[in-house]
């Protein structure tokens, strides 16, 4: 097999203290794609990254990076991957430039090459003017940029970015997106985790939605959004939601599905949004209930997540 499956977490389940972080999660990332793992906090995204990057030992299952079984061929795997952790773990005893040059040295790069690459990355990540300073005075955004630069220092074939844009200002977020695309265009595979669906939507070729360690859906952002019945989600909150009301709402033109999610709450999946309101008001009046709240959202990965789990990604 050439670089067919870049990162393949096959049935990797991790059990710690009886908490199953990943439960029969199987996914395949193709070489040369930007793959997003989307899910709320605690969904098992970081555990997946940990297993694929040799840092977490799975209790069952297998993980592959390229041709290598991750747990059995850790050193070979480590040569192929670059990792940007969720929390910056930069070497505080070193200056920004030294963080890069020593990292290069760990990967056996010759001295001149280390300097050349460090200069290029410091420029690219706009860190040149702070290159020779220790990291103590660095802002969160600067540390995140340096973390990503460090992960790219040895030019890995697969780049793992765990929540790369958390806590970044919009400008740095744009710079990051640009750099990720550029790196991908150079033929590299990128796996990023996020709980931000806009980011996944904008950046990723394919997205896997995970929750409670289980794979909920996988596909291109477009495919995933198309798979939501109707596309639009109208969330309604009534004083009460009798079955007759839910039934009549489900029968409205354009509505593909009506579901009661909690007390008085009804979710409508429909091919239209605002146009449904008059009909909804009539149905509510006929049922003798009052409407407390109406929320219309356009087709999005957020809606897909909500449909599969009954919860919002942000919850």
């Amino acid at each position, binding site marked *: 097999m050439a670089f067919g499956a870049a990162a393949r977490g096959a049935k990797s389940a991790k059990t*710690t203290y009886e908490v199953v972080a990943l439960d029969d999660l199987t996914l395949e990332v193709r070489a040369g794609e930007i793959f997003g793992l989307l899910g709320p906090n605690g969904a098992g995204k970081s555990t997946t990254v*940990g297993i694929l*990057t*040799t*840092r*977490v*030992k799975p209790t069952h299952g297998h993980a592959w990076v390229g041709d290598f079984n991750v747990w059995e061929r*850790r*050193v*070979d795997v*480590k*040569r192929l*991957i670059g*990792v940007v*952790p969720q*929390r910056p*773990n*930069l*070497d*505080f*005893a*070193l200056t920004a430039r*030294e963080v890069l040059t*020593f*990292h290069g*040295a*760990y*990967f*056996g790069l010759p001295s001149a090459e280390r300097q050349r690459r460090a200069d290029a990355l410091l420029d690219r990540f706009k860190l040149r003017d702070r290159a020779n300073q220790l990291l103590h005075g660095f802002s969160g955004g600067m540390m995140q940029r340096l973390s990503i630069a*460090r992960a790219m220092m040895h030019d890995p074939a697969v780049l793992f970015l765990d929540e790369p844009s958390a806590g970044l200002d919009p400008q740095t977020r744009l710079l990051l997106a640009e750099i990720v695309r550029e790196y991908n265009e150079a033929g590299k595979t990128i796996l990023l985790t996020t709980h931000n669906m806009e980011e996944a939507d904008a950046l990723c070729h394919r997205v896997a939605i995970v929750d409670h360690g289980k794979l909920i859906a996988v596909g291109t952002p477009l495919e995933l959004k198309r798979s939501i019945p109707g596309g639009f989600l109208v969330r309604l909150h009534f004083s009460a939601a009798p079955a007759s009301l839910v039934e009549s709402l489900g029968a409205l033109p354009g509505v593909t599905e009506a579901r009661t999610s909690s007390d008085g709450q009804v979710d409508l999946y429909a091919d239209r949004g605002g146009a449904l309101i008059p009909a909804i008001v009539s149905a509510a009046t006929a049922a003798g209930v009052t409407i407390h709240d109406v929320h219309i959202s356009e087709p999005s990965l957020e809606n897909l997540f909500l449909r599969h789990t009954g919860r919002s990604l942000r919850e």
Partner: protein
Amino acid sequence: MNFKTFFAMLSRDAHVARRNFGPLLAQTLLQPMMFVFIFGRVMVTSGYMPPQYKSLLLPGIIAISMVISGAWAVAMPLISEFQFTKEIEDRLLAPMEMDWLAVEKVVAGMIQALVAGLVVIPIAWLVMGSGVVLSSDHIVLFIVLALLVSLLASVIGLTLGCSVGPQHIGLMFSLALAPMIFFGCTYYPWQALQKFPVLKRMVLINPLVYASEGFRSALVPEFPHLPLNWLLVGLGLFNVVFFSLGIRQFRKKALT
């Protein structure tokens, strides 16, 4: 085994140690030096201690300085890097088997312990003034012992650094290192415990005893000291025990 990675990490540690050389020395050597001044200079000059005490004290001071600075140099960065800043992750992701990173830390600690030993001899000599008489007849034995003691310091550091949480650093000093120093036959020879038979046996579980008695046997053989085979067996055994313990704890910390 990837030598390039190993030496790159060693040069990283050397680079950082060079940058922090002054504070590091002050942290580990100031206390023994004050002890040398008070007991080796003030007490002897004022007549409360016999002049020979200077020569008896120096090997113990070398042992303390080496063990404390080596253990400190390995333990402190490990405590913060594993549990606080997680900055060791970058080196765990370098293309080298994980255990070699622990070995690298041990080698770096050995070098620092040896440097501390080399620095402390002339300083203590100067602080105590005239009257220190050291033998140079057993120089090979001294070198062998210095290597074993520096390894001991390092593996103790590895064990502590991978077992103690950042909130317990103070406790580590008062519960582990301070008793080790005071019951380590550093300021007195083991023979001096003659009238405390229980204590005399108990201190033998203290690895520092073998370090200070060892240096005594090499530098001031005219004073009583443990026999050579006890010394070598003791140092060897503690090195093996602490290395195995340390590497086990290291693996536990390194993987989640």
